[in-house]
């Protein structure tokens, strides 16, 4: 059935991607899932220099979800290009590199360096990571700051730019429009919500970082509502994510207005969740007589 699409100029075999931070740099999952069937892989956030991230514990379970406070642990852009990209480049799925930073200059520097490498299909600008002290969330909440960082990165790149939005805002429409107006080619909604867990027996926060990012099915209603709202407010395509565990959840995002979806936390529960969803989407199209899955995008708006 017709799962293929073109999104912001990127041709995708199907609309299912692995979300940033939940699939490393692709390699580790090859042993447990059919990575070649994916539409795209979005890498863990890449920063200018390598980062160890936050102290542990940096994970906690919550009802129908989890908190992470990884703190952008990554190998840094140089090691990424030298050690991780060659593997990714040879895989069938499109390669989308998630870029993070603590200042506009850092985002720009990472983007400039990545431009010199081959085998990258698009960038995803992470302006919404709640787990770093500087930058991160600050960029993601203020339309003017979003415009500045998106504009600055756009000026140094030739590849399509996806901007990943924070849900921790009063008005997702104004932040999304700011990204669009500054040149974003697509939006990814949503990153994690800010959350906390308490170890009552120790009378302390569970996470060393105190707060973390909430992901998993618990946040799906929030992600769906934001995609639904932004769909009618922007012209660029939306990639929906947040709590997608099954085929039905992916379809819900498409019906709210997402053209593609990303699978994050679900991979931790079932390593082949994304593959099952691709199969499930094809089966659904078959069953429902839908020729092109893109035909149901935004169906909830009718």
């Amino acid at each position, binding site marked *: 059935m017709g799962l293929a699409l073109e999104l912001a100029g990127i041709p995708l075999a199907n609309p299912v991607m692995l979300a940033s*931070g*939940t*699939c*490393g740099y692709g*390699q*580790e*999952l*090859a*042993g*447990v899932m059919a990575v070649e069937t994916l539409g795209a892989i979005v890498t*863990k956030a890449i920063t200018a220099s390598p980062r*160890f*991230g936050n102290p*542990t*514990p*940096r*994970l*906690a*379970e*919550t*009802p*129908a*979800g*989890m908190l*992470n406070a*990884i703190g952008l*642990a*990554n190998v840094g852009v140089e090691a990424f290009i030298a*050690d991780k990209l060659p593997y990714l480049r040879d895989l069938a799925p499109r390669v989308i590199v998630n870029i993070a930073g603590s200042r506009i200059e850092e985002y720009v520097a990472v983007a400039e360096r990545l431009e010199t490498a081959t085998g990258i299909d698009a960038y995803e600008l992470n302006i919404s990571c709640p787990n770093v002290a500087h930058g991160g969330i600050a960029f993601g909440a203020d339309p003017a700051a979003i415009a500045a960082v998106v504009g600055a990165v756009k000026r140094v790149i030739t590849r399509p730019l996806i901007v990943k939005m924070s849900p921790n805002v009063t008005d997702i429409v104004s932040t999304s429009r700011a990204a669009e107006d500054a040149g974003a080619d697509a939006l990814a909604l949503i990153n994690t919500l800010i959350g906390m867990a308490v170890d009552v027996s120790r009378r302390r926060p569970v996470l060393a970082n105190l707060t973390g990012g909430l992901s*998993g099915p618990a946040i799906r209603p929030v992600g769906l509502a934001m995609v639904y709202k932004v769909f009618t407010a922007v012209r660029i395509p939306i990639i929906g994510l947040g709590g997608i565990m099954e085929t039905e959840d992916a379809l819900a995002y498409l019906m709210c207005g997402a053209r593609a979806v990303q699978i994050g*936390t679900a*991979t*931790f*529960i*079932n*390593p*082949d969740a994304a593959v099952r969803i691709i199969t499930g989407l094809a089966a659904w199209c078959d069953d429902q007589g839908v020729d092109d899955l893109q035909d149901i995008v935004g169906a909830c708006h009718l």
Partner: protein
Amino acid sequence: MTEPCQPPSAQQMMATVVANQACGPGIHLLELTCAAALPAIAPGQFAFLRPRHGDIFLRRPLGVHEAEGTRLRLLFDVVGRGTAALAAVQPGQELDLLLPLGHPFEIPPPPALPVLVAGGLGLPPLHFLARQLHAAQRPFRMLYGARTAARLVLADDLAALCPQLRLFTDDGSAGEHAQITAGLADLPPQAHLLVCGPTPMMRAVASAAAQAGLACQVSLEERMACGLGVCMGCVCRTRNADGQEGRARVCVEGPVFPAQEVLWDSP
């Protein structure tokens, strides 16, 4: 730890509970029949699991205690919600397993003398290893300690496998009334320690081993989300041969590490 990471080739499979018995205060022995024959598993590797139905979201790591054919045994302590949920599963109910995961103990070739050091619920991988060494008729020693006699589970089994077994309890209710580190005093220089237990105990053993110049491997614990090396949640602090600080993922580079590579957090 520095070698490029091999993609883990774990299998996901369903397993049916055959028995789930308390064998000490809060300690459960869980016996499962897996839907397919188990792949090769080495002592120190772990299963990443959750009840198929229920309100536990993330999988939990448990060291493999015994594996043969389709039979899998796990031994665990109830410390929180996840292990409480596992303690409540009934025969006939299903668990969702991902295994084997992680880097196992590396069995040092002769003339090294394997010395298995188990603290409390650090027993499973070392019980597994003891059975392997016994079957291979390889001489080894074992030290096994717990807070109190009731928590020194399966000690009889171990005694049958290892005539050299020494037992310790914190309260003297069984074995020697001493910390397990007391058992390290009179080891020969070819002793190679293989350690699993609570972090403070492992830190103490590792430091004693370093002082005595003995080789030592430790099996670390961290909270895990993916078990596959992709979430970066389960890192420990490490130092390489040059003394440079780094981070390693307990789920793929570990859980077993050479003790000298581990940077312990201050107690």
